Structures are given as structure tokens and as C-alpha cells.
């Protein structure tokens, strides 16, 4: 690795920055907004320390700790509250951002043959990787500063400059770590899909590991990068050690990625792809078979992931049960309000998160159609005896089935883990219906994705913005009162909170009708329009 390995890194960094000059500011602005609207809202909602202390009662239980991470509940200022309820979830989103940004300019460019051109010029073996790392690092430093100064600028008493900067740094640091993780998988895996898949799997694992260790043995949470975020104890003891740890680990990851890049051939990986079959199986010999075959690995990975997610949440129910048994005040507070048992009341809260995550794979399955179109591979099918209707129909069926499998598996995971760890057990039917009520809302999301592909193919990614909006209003709606209308703009805002509420027929029926309508329009649109790439 002499200096030549890095030749032209500077020029390439500027080049990558130029390519992403819209994307990066959008991400930073989105995340800053997501973060900055919260403290003023809390400030409005909980004006006195008494009110804030009261809310700690509902926060101090294993379900909340698993979902949000640990927080300083003894000194629950607006700052501590924001950090407790927001920082881990925001860090997860930052992680996803890092995975997507870094994959784009490592494995994705390499897979598409663009790095070959760059490498034939006098640029070093490691230049493109490091240019990508530099841009990503710069992005996350920017994010840290924007959020840090932004929070301080809100002028809320408990949010001092040091804490605010630490808040930003914890998020930026997470970005660094997942930049490193993605850079390594970009070397190991031969495809950009593989890179994203493996990196997101690590992110999910980090989240779940932290969830479980936070309620069983907090010290073990030091193993998970997402644990470091809570351990920074922003706006209470302000532990900068976490940040140092993040930086040290990311430097290590960067070095490993460089090492791996240096010893491998271009367009190769380390996770070998095995030779395939000589003949197409029967399954493959139809458009729907092809649609499934192309996504099989992703489908299986997501299915496992959602089962594990459900099971991880389910595994906290034992702790939850014993927690409430010894806490009389809780029993009074919650039981008189609702009909379901105390533990069961947490199911809708968890289900919202689960169902939102379970919506990602079916929407991806639908968008795959657009991806194939962009790569001009649909022509192979359309030029043979496959109609456009059949083509979009195949992907639609895939997505609809995919969503059903995902939500069912996560419910099954939650139920099986919960029943094992609880004394009284849970009823499968109850858990399943609590999950399935979200299915019509998922169908609406799939319908919108199909609609965009059919009518507005250039705007296919709008579905993700709508998805993020839904996530935003539901997640925040869970933590604070937001105007009803804001929540109702998302299909998920219409889902009854089973088992606290009854399964109401009307909203679910209407959601299904809307989904169906969107899908039908998508057929018409797709049949009429040209192929576009």
C-alpha cells in the first residue's frame, strides 16, 4: 500500500460529492427535522417537572427499554427525555442512511462496471473506496454539527451546548460505524444487494442485541454499536467515551475495508457465489416464478429477520410480566383504564414498529419491477409472450404474498417467544389479530408503490418518503399527542389498537378498498405507458 494506492482520491471525493449533492443535504435536513421538532413538542406537553416525572412511570418498564434503550429516568428533563425516546431510533435511521450512501459508491458502482473505467485511469487501487469513505465521513460530521447546534439553538434550558453536541456526535458516530460496516461488506459481497442486505442485517442485529441486553444485563450492551448511543447518556452525564469508542472502531473498520480491497481482484468478493443449475426449474419458467426467483434470497433473509424481530420483542414479555406483578401502582393505573391485561397493552405499541418494518420487504418486492425496468431487463420478457398486465400482476402478487408472510411470521415470532417466557402465556389468536389488522394498511402501501410504477415511474421512490412520513407520525404519535389529522394521513393511522380496542371493520374495509383501487389503476397505467429507464 504505497501512496500510489491513493492517487487522485481528492478528485474522486469531489466527484462523488457532486453526484450526491442533492441526496446528502436531503438526508441531513430530514434527520435534523425529525430530531428538532421533538424537544419543543415535549416542552409544550410536559411543562413541569412533576408532569415529566409522571411520564417516567410509563417509561420505566422493560418493553419501553427494549424499544427505546436506557435513559436517565431519575432526572427526566426535556433533554434527557428527548435523548431517551429519540436517540436510538434516530441512530437506526442514520445507520440505514450510511448503508445506502456507502453502497452506492462502493459495490454498486463496481458491480455496474463504472469503477473499471476509473481504475484504468491513473487513480489508485484504493482511491475510490477512500473517496467514498471521505464523503461519507464528511456527511456525518455535517450531520453531527447540524443536529448539535440545532438542538442547542432551540434554547431549551436543559439542553446545554455540550449535551447537544454530544447528541449530534452520537448520531454522527453511528454513521461512521455503519460506514465502516458497509465498506467491509462491499468488499466481502459480490453484489450491491448483498452489501445492503448484510449491512442491514448487522444493524438489525445490533438493535436486537441491545434490546435484549438492555433489559437483562446492561453491561453487555457495550457490545452493540447501538448500545453506545444510549451509553453516551446525553443531557445527563455526557459520556464522551462512547464517541471515542465509535471513532476507534470505525477507523479499525476503515482499515480492514482498505486491506480487503487491496488484496482482492476487481468485481470479486470473498463470499463466493456457487455455480447454479443447468436447467431452469419448473418454478422459474413463468414471470411470477422469475419474479420470485430474483428475490428469493432477500425474501428468506427478511422472513428470518422479521421472525427474529418478533421473537426478540416477545422475549421481553417475561420481564414485563414480573415487572408489573411487583408494581401495584402500575396495576391500578393501567388496568382500570382498559380491558386487556397489562402486558397485552404493550402489544399495539410493539406491533406498530413491527408492521412498519414488515412493510419494507413487500414494497421492495414491488419496486423490484421498476428496478428491472431501469436495467432494461424487462424487454427480455416483454419481447416474448408476456403481456404487461401479466408482468405487473406477477410482481403485485409477489408483494401481496410477501407482506402477508412477513407480518404473519413476526406475529408468530412474538407469540412463540412470549409464551415461552411468560407464566400465563399469550393467546396466539389475539397476537395474530393484533398483527393482521395492519395488513390492509400494508396493502395500501403496496398499492401506492404499484400506482407510482404504473403511472409515475420516475417518481417511484416517493413511496419511501411516504413510508418515512408514516414512520415519523406513528413513532412520534406513540410518544406524544400529535394532531389527529397528521396521523390519519398515513394508512397506519387508521388501524385499531388491538387488543386494547376492538377490531373495527369499517376502517379496515375502506383501507382494503383503497388498496385494491390503487392496484387496479396501476394495471391500467402500466399497460398504457412506454418502458422508461
Amino acid at each position, binding site marked *: 500500500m504505497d501512496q*500510489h*494506492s491513493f*492517487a*487522485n482520491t481528492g*478528485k*474522486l471525493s469531489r*466527484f462523488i460529492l457532486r*453526484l450526491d449533492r442533492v441526496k446528502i443535504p436531503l438526508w441531513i435536513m430530514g434527520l435534523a427535522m425529525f430530531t428538532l421538532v421533538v424537544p419543543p413538542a415535549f416542552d409544550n406537553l410536559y411543562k413541569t417537572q412533576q408532569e415529566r416525572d409522571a411520564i417516567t412511570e410509563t417509561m420505566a418498564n422493560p418493553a419501553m427499554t427494549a424499544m427505546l434503550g436506557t435513559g436517565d429516568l431519575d432526572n427526566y428533563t426535556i433533554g434527557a427525555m428527548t435523548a431517551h425516546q429519540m436517540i436510538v431510533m434516530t441512530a437506526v435511521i442514520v445507520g440505514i442512511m450510511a448503508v445506502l450512501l456507502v453502497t452506492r459508491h462502493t459495490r454498486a458502482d463496481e458491480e*455496474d*462496471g*463504472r469503477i*473499471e*473505467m*476509473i*481504475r*484504468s*485511469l*491513473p*487513480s*489508485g*487501487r484504493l482511491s475510490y473506496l477512500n473517496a467514498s469513505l471521505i464523503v461519507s465521513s464528511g456527511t456525518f460530521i455535517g450531520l453531527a454539527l447540524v443536529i448539535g447546534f440545532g438542538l442547542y439553538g432551540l434554547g431549551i434550558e436543559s439542553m446545554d451546548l455540550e449535551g447537544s453536541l454530544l447528541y449530534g456526535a452520537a448520531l454522527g458516530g453511528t454513521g461512521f460505524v455503519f460506514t465502516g460496516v458497509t465498506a467491509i461488506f462491499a468488499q466481502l459481497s459480490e453484489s450491491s444487494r448483498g452489501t445492503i442486505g448484510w449491512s442491514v442485517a448487522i444493524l438489525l442485529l445490533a438493535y436486537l442485541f441491545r434490546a435484549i441486553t438492555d433489559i437483562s444485563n446492561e453491561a453487555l450492551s457495550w457490545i452493540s454499536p447501538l448500545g453506545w448511543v444510549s451509553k453516551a447518556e446525553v443531557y445527563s452525564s455526557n459520556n464522551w467515551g462512547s464517541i471515542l469508542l465509535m471513532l476507534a472502531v470505525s477507523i479499525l473498520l476503515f482499515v480492514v475495508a482498505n486491506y480487503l480491497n487491496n488484496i482482492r*481482484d*476487481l468485481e*470479486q468478493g470473498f463470499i*463466493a457465489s456457487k455455480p447454479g443449475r443447468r436447467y431452469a426449474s419448473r418454478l422459474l419458467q413463468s414471470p411470477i416464478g422469475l419474479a420470485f426467483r430474483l428475490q428469493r434470497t432477500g425474501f428468506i433473509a427478511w422472513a428470518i429477520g422479521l421472525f427474529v424481530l418478533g421473537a426478540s420483542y416477545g422475549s421481553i414479555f417475561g420481564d414485563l410480566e414480573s415487572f408489573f406483578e411487583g408494581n401495584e401502582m402500575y396495576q391500578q393505573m393501567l388496568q382500570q383504564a382498559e380491558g386487556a391485561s397489562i402486558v397485552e397493552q404493550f402489544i399495539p405499541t410493539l406491533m406498530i414498529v413491527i408492521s412498519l418494518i414488515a412493510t419494507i420487504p413487500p414494497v421492495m418486492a414491488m419496486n423490484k419491477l421498476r428496478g428491472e425496468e431501469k436495467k432494461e431487463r424487462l424487454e427480455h420478457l416483454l419481447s416474448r409472450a408476456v403481456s404487461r398486465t401479466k408482468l405487473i400482476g406477477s410482481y403485485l402478487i409477489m408483494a401481496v404474498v410477501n407482506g402477508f408472510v412477513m407480518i404473519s411470521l413476526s406475529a408468530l415470532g412474538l407469540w412463540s417467544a412470549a409464551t415461552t417466557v411468560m407464566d400465563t402465556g399469550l393467546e396466539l389468536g389475539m397476537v395474530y389479530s393484533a398483527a393482521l389488522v395492519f395488513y390492509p394498511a400494508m396493502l395500501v402501501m403496496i398499492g401506492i408503490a404499484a400506482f407510482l410504477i404504473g403511472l409515475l415511474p420516475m417518481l417511484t421512490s416517493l413511496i419511501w418518503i411516504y413510508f418515512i412520513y408514516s414512520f415519523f407520525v406513528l413513532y412520534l404519535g406513540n410518544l406524544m399527542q400529535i394532531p389527529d389529522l397528521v396521523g390519519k394521513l398515513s394508512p397506519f393511522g387508521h388501524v385499531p389498537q388491538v387488543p386494547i380496542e376492538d377490531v373495527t371493520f369499517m376502517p379496515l374495509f375502506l383501507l382494503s378498498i383503497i388498496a385494491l383501487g390503487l392496484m387496479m389503476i396501476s394495471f391500467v397505467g402500466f399497460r398504457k405507458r412506454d418502458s422508461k*429507464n
Partner: protein
Amino acid sequence: MSVLEVSNLTKKFGKFTALDGVNFEVGSGEVFGFIGPNGAGKSTTIRVLLGILKATEGEVKLFGKDAWNEAVEIHKRLAYVPGDVNLWPNLTGGEVIDLFVKLRGGNNKSRREELIKKFDLDPTKKCRTYSKGNRQKVALIAAFSSDADLYILDEPTSGLDPLMEKVFQECVMDVKNRGKSVLLSSHILSEVEKLCDRVGIIRQGKIIETGSLSELRHLTRTHILVETKQSISSLNELQGIHKIEETDQGLTFQVDTEQLDDVIRHISQFGIEKLESAPPTLEDLFMRHYESKDKSEGKETGGVR
């Protein structure tokens, strides 16, 4: 002096041996044609030359420098055009050309403009909307507008129309006249025949023939068309005669070049009225080598190795 030296190059992908002891050289000012059937190892060889694949064994030197270790130095004097040009969908062709030129460090604005005009490319269009041929033009313009000493071209014309193909050939001739070297891999044999001083034929990872075109021609057959007063007898008993056919114009057949003398002597006995001979096309030469081993075995000519 040779610009490029490959000796005993072997490249393995796992257990699969893609290149098996490849040897060849490209001299200064020479246009070298690199040909062979699909999957023979041409692109693999070129990618080793570019230092983006690491040789398993053997030595690869460009300008006397090691292809892997001194890639950056080498690339300052080299231009590359792949057969499948992939570009950034959101950039225009003009932007991509500038990027490539900037990364190289040279700056030849007038050449760039001249080539854009010659190749008839609209540089303001986004790469997403370019056809295959247009993407290839972008890479060709970037390559030929740079002042390289060696041009490595891997099927650079697979998407060009005949008119553009001609422009490409002019560019290669121009580069050659300025004393630069070219390594051209191509399936278009007429192009190779027209442009190349020497060719190397690779099959299944091994170089099976290298030499100048006239040297290689020697190893192959001449096409003959004759009309004679009397009909020729016992022609098929002669050595080195192939594909005898009776046509309206007369009798056609092919002769192994080393047997030509004997054959002409033989047929002249029958009173020649008309004789046409055509030199072997490269195609004949290649056909013989491209055909699978079991067919060509036995009469393997050895050749210039």
C-alpha cells in the same frame, strides 16, 4: 523496444484456470490484434494488464513497469476502452469525458471538440439516455483525446455503425502514425486485418498463434478458381486440397499454401483458360483455430510461437 511484455501469465479464478501461461509482446509503434473465441480469456488478459486483476503467476510489464504494483504510473501513459461501457446515469457524456480527462491530468480541449464532432456525439445528453454505441463513443473520445502511449481497446466497436467504425479506424491509424502502440481485441476480423501489424490468437487461455499477418497467412489456404480446356482429373488425390466445388464460373477449391506449387503444376496440364486466386482471409485462418480442438488436431501446423 516493446511497450508491453507478458510472460507466462496464468490467472485462476478459484479452481478455474482462465489464463494458462500466456506469452506475447507488443512493440513500440505497433498495432497488435488480440483475437479468439468467446470466453478465450481476452478480457481477462486485458484486465490483468490494467492491474485490476492480479496475476496468479507470471510477469506482466508495461513500459517496463509491473502492471499490478505500478498501475498508477502506467495508467498515466495508457488509455482504455472496454466493450461494455457503463457510465453514471445522471451525468452527461461531456461531463464524463471531462472527468476522465481530469483524472488523467492532461488537457487537450481542441482534440476533444474535434473528436466529438467526428464521432457525432451530443455531449449534453444524460448517459442514461445514450444508446450502446453512444456510450462507447464517450469512452472512445475520452481515450483518443488523451495523449497516451498505449491504447488498450477491448472490442471497442461492438456497438458502432459502419460510418463510426470508419472514424474509429481513422483514429487508430492516426495514433499509429504518431508512433503510439495499440492493443486491439476484436471479433470484427476485417477491422483487425485492416489495422493490425501483428495478431495473437488465444484459445482456452492459451496463445496458440502470434505473428504478422503475412506470416500467419503462410499457414493457411489460398482460394483458387480455374477454368480449363479439359476437365481436371484426379485433383482430389493431391495433397492439401480442400472443398472442391463445381460452379458456373468454373472449379473452385482451396489449397494449403505450402502445396500451392504442386497443385498449379498439376492443373496446368489441362490447359488453363482462366485462373483467379484470392489470398486467404483472416477469417479462414481463424476458423481453423476457432474450431474445437478435436477437429483441428492431427493437422496442427505448429506455427510461429
